[in-house]
């Protein structure tokens, strides 16, 4: 009798236990952990959208990977992407909106001018801004909340200038640059000019435009390709660079063209077509890299978005990884900035990415060219 009684009770206990488990599961489902909000801000619409969209998709891939692994400390990560419209006012507004929503950090901006505009607000709010692609030296060497995974653009400029002098032998150079992103373009031009002229070259023409403004790029192209100029250097986004290249070639000028790393997206080849064949660009991103991490990333990116990842995809992916890794490894109560600085370095898709005490990073830079509709690395990688 005692035994039956006990077994009945055990049965009841099992049921009770099941009910409790069910309740806890349901309760857990109802009270799921608050997601970690991560902001992304960049040009998602308009002329510079290729940089922003592929950057957002790279960051999204990283977030999706983290979420598949269970999130950060059990909390899912949610990427809130916003378009800064390449307008400082819009940038500040969307940043503020994201900060108000409680993002732990903002991945962005993708362009230097937007970053320069955004950083004071981030410092004020003490929230990290991790830029994938802002390379302006204006934000270097500051103890602020600005971090980045890209090298400063003077490195690219110097690399490209040195290459152009020693390779194609640019001597009399016309530079064309976008004043819409002058925080990027002007330091770039300055660094390029210094290196070029130190190496015996000379900038003989300087043409500027504002991307998206009703300024006929055909005219800019015409002036930049005036006789006596043996090389044109374009410092602009992919669309503008492609357009300028098309106009230069449309004019029938066969002068060699080089471009800043900003333009080195897949859209450049798509939009530039034959006109961009042979142009030389500074790069930190090697599309031919055999790095297993990169190859896996590339394959997954293709699968996920049906497109090739660009440098901004890689940079945004690395930036997202940096932030989420530091967050996951932060100690209790430790600010993200401190955690990032403590992290010092992490494995990027194409090599170790390290931060200095100011959150700046140094990356390997090299020169690529467009050959048969593809980017090819020139010289040493």
């Amino acid at each position, binding site marked *: 009798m005692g035994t039956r009684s006990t077994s009945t009770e055990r049965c009841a206990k099992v049921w009770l236990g099941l009910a409790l488990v069910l309740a806890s599961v349901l309760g857990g489902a109802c009270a799921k952990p608050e997601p970690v909000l991560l902001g992304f801000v960049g040009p998602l619409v308009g002329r510079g959208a290729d940089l922003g969209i592929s950057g957002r*998709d790279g960051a999204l891939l990283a977030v999706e990977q983290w979420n598949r692994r269970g999130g950060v400390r059990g909390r899912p990560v949610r990427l809130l992407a916003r*378009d800064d419209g390449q307008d400082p006012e819009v940038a500040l507004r969307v940043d503020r909106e994201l900060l108000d929503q409680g993002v732990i950090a903002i991945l962005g901006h993708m362009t230097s001018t937007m970053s320069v505009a955004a950083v004071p607000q981030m410092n004020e709010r003490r929230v990290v801004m991790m830029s994938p692609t802002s390379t302006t030296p204006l934000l270097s060497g500051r103890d602020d909340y600005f971090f980045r995974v890209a090298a400063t653009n003077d490195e690219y400029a110097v690399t490209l200038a040195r290459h152009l002098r020693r390779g194609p032998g640019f001597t009399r150079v016309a530079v064309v640059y976008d004043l819409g992103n002058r925080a990027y373009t002007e330091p770039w031009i300055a660094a390029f000019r210094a290196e070029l002229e130190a190496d015996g070259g000379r900038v003989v023409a300087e043409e500027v435009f504002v991307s998206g403004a009703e300024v006929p790029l055909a005219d800019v192209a015409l002036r930049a390709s005036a006789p006596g100029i043996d090389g044109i250097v374009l410092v602009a986004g992919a669309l503008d660079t492609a357009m300028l290249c098309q106009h230069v070639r449309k004019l029938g000028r066969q002068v060699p063209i080089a471009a800043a790393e900003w333009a080195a997206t897949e859209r450049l080849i798509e939009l530039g*077509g034959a006109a961009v064949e042979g142009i030389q660009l500074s790069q930190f991103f090697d599309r031919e890299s055999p790095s297993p991490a990169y190859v896996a990333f590339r394959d997954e990116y293709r699968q996920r978005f049906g497109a090739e990842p660009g440098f901004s995809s890689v940079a945004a992916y690395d930036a997202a990884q940096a932030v989420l890794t530091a967050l996951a490894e932060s100690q209790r109560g430790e600010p993200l900035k401190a955690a990032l600085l403590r992290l010092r370095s992490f494995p990027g898709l194409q090599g170790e990415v390290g931060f200095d005490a100011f959150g700046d990073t140094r990356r390997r830079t090299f020169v690529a060219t467009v050959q048969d509709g593809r980017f090819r690395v020139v010289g040493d990688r």
Partner: protein
Amino acid sequence: MKRLPPLRRALTARFLVAAVLPLAVASTLAVTHLTRATRNEVGERNLLLARAIGGQIEVFLREPVAALGTLGAVLRAGVSGGDAHALLAAQVATSALFEAVLLLDPSGRVTEAAFRGGRPTTRREVLGLDLSHQGFFREALATGEPTWTDAFLSLTTGKVSLALCLRVDDRVLLGHVDADELWAFAQTLRLGHPGGRPVDIVVLDRRGTVVIHPDPELAHAQVNLRGMEPVARGLAGEGGTYRYRVNGDEYLGSSVWVRGPGWVVVVAEPAASAFAPVIEAAWLLGGALGGAALLAVWFALAQGRRVARPFAEFAAEARGVEAGTYRVGPANPRYREVQEFAAGFRRMTEAVREREASLRESRERFVRLFHGTNDAIFVQQLDPGGTGARLVEANDVACRLLGYDRESLAELSLADALAPSSRELVPVLLRDLRDHGAVLADLTLLGRDGREIPVEVNAHRFDLEGQETVLSAVRDTTVRKRLEAERQDLELRLSHSQRMEAVGTLAGGIAHDFNNLLHAIGGYAELAARDAVGVRGQRHLAQIRSAADRGTELVRGLLAFSRRGEPVRRSVDLNAEVTQTLELLARVVPRSIEIRAALAPDLWRVRGDPVLLAQVLVNLGTNARDAMPDGGELLVETGNASLSAGDPCLDPGAPPGPYVCLRVADTGIGMAPATVARIFEPFFTTKGVGEGTGLGLATAYGTVRDHGGWIRCQSALGRGTTFEVYLPAGAEVNAQAPPPAPLPRAEGGTETLLVVDDEEAVLDLAREGLEDLGYRVLVARDGEQAVAEFREHQGEIALVVLDLGLPRLGGDRCLEELRRLSPRVPVLVASGYSPTEQFDRMTRAGAQGFLAKPYRFDALARTVRALLEARDPSTPASPQGVE
């Protein structure tokens, strides 16, 4: 004891399972079924909606395709450059959807372009641009069919665009779609949705990039959703309904592929909304389940309480029974089983109560027996090896016997409880117990105060609850042993007394006969002396006479020993007699013996014969003297003694009461116990031949016996001897006989005398002697003859000499007859027995004189003469006696 669950809880659990389980299973099945049905229904509905939207999109896009087709047909017919621009501009102007239309030459260069609003600068910028590397160009050339591009960054518009491509011969027409128009179209799709439930309608291009979305920003920002299952499936041509998650929220998405542009339409609905009816039903069922569970619990608790209550009451009553109260049965049994159980419980309780009462009574009886017995009882458990024993229980007697309380006794070892002399017996006793199961032994225990206690132990072994146990009944034999010793002593003394009695009787009988012989010898010697001549003859006769006298003395001693006489009873101050006698003794004991007297000043008086008592002291003193040949001390003490029953000094047979003790102690050689045992026997002597008669102590013994007392003798070799004479303390009774009248001279007469005696020699001697003195002597040899003679010669007979010990009518009866026949004739009684014994009796019977046999003839003659002369014819003669 294993702790079992309470009945109420068990019942509750079962009720709960019974009530909830079917409902839970049914609810689960119902919810599962409902979920599946809802999913199917929602899926089908949304799929239908998606297909409808797909159809609308197809229809919506058919118009621009047709318009571009018409334009293409016109261009194909061949128009000049200016006309071409006009055609394109007209198309832009007339089409709501196209914001720009471009014509590309076979190399992909823009040969003509028209923009909404003209925009000549833009047109100039665009003309000549090489778009050959853009995917749509190659696709349009390859298919020849109108082709919708994916969202792309347009060089011409400077923003992300959709475009429709159409090959016109070897050229390509490109119509840029106005996103705002597309958005407006999307709005119409939303309007067409029935039901009002929040569903999202998303249209995606062939890469999964959002073309139409409720949030237009997503479309502008080219958000790619191909990672979502319905999108991926839709792009793969596998339209259907799928569940998927976005940012943790679950959705139900139905997707269809739109044939024309190859886009995918997804109608997505949050699962929470889609399954709202199911969730509602689940809540309802859950509520019902909870309610049922609560109801079941309540019912089970109530029922369990009702069922369990009698058992709780039984448990309480069982505790009551345990505690000794016997109230049974629940107040109101509600079930037959409980009722039957209660009845059984009641019977059981009654049985228990009776059994307990019986047990208690039995135990009380046992306790009374155990503690009430005179024996000490020890219960011990034998050690496994059988070498020792541990005390388990002992009764009160045992505690008292040893002088321990129960606790101390329990800690006492067997060896501690035994006197050293008995300890060595323990192994033997234990072995006997093992071998035979019982032991009977005399042991000596050691009391707490060190006192040794002789005991008799009767132990037997038995098995008690698997333990070898020994029950010992121990009896204190101290008193018994003392009593036994006393009894032995008593028996010894009784036997001695009886022996003395027998010896006395024997001696008395012999003495009587011997007395007659001496009487005759002495008498005839006396008679012969009257006639004898010559000095020598006289001397010989005197020697005979002397020997007869000595024999007479001996016989008298024997008679005294054998109580053949009764002492004269008068109040005697024993101290005075002792004092006088000691003076006499002082002359017969040597100076080497010191006589000391310790006389109690307030000594009670005794009843007795002072002369005989003095003789006792003389005999004892003489004995003491003989025991101290080398001198010593003779101590004579007197004292009072109140002897109670059981007093060791009290002679067996003697009544308890006040006694006077005369103690005669010497410091002489003492006697062995065997000698002491025979010391009072006549003729028993340790002295040499001629040193003693062996009658001294026997005479003393007889004298004291005659006085109602006894003599104790305590002696040991070398330690002297003490005699203790106990005489009953008497009242002041003075039975002193009157002083006898002086006897006349022995002279004869002529009167007729009747001499009665059965002894022929005595008779002859008396007749011959009296006849010599002139008397006429008649003789009779027995009582009857005497009476006959007296009757025959009545009047002649002046005096009768009567022996008391006569055959045929004894002396007493004879005297009585004579007194009856003639009270005046004096009768002289002659008897061999002690004259003092007979004196009173004979006087009362009417005898006038008394003569102790053997008497000297002179004494007879003088007594006869005195009685004859004293006779008074009117009064009986006054009694005359001779000792």
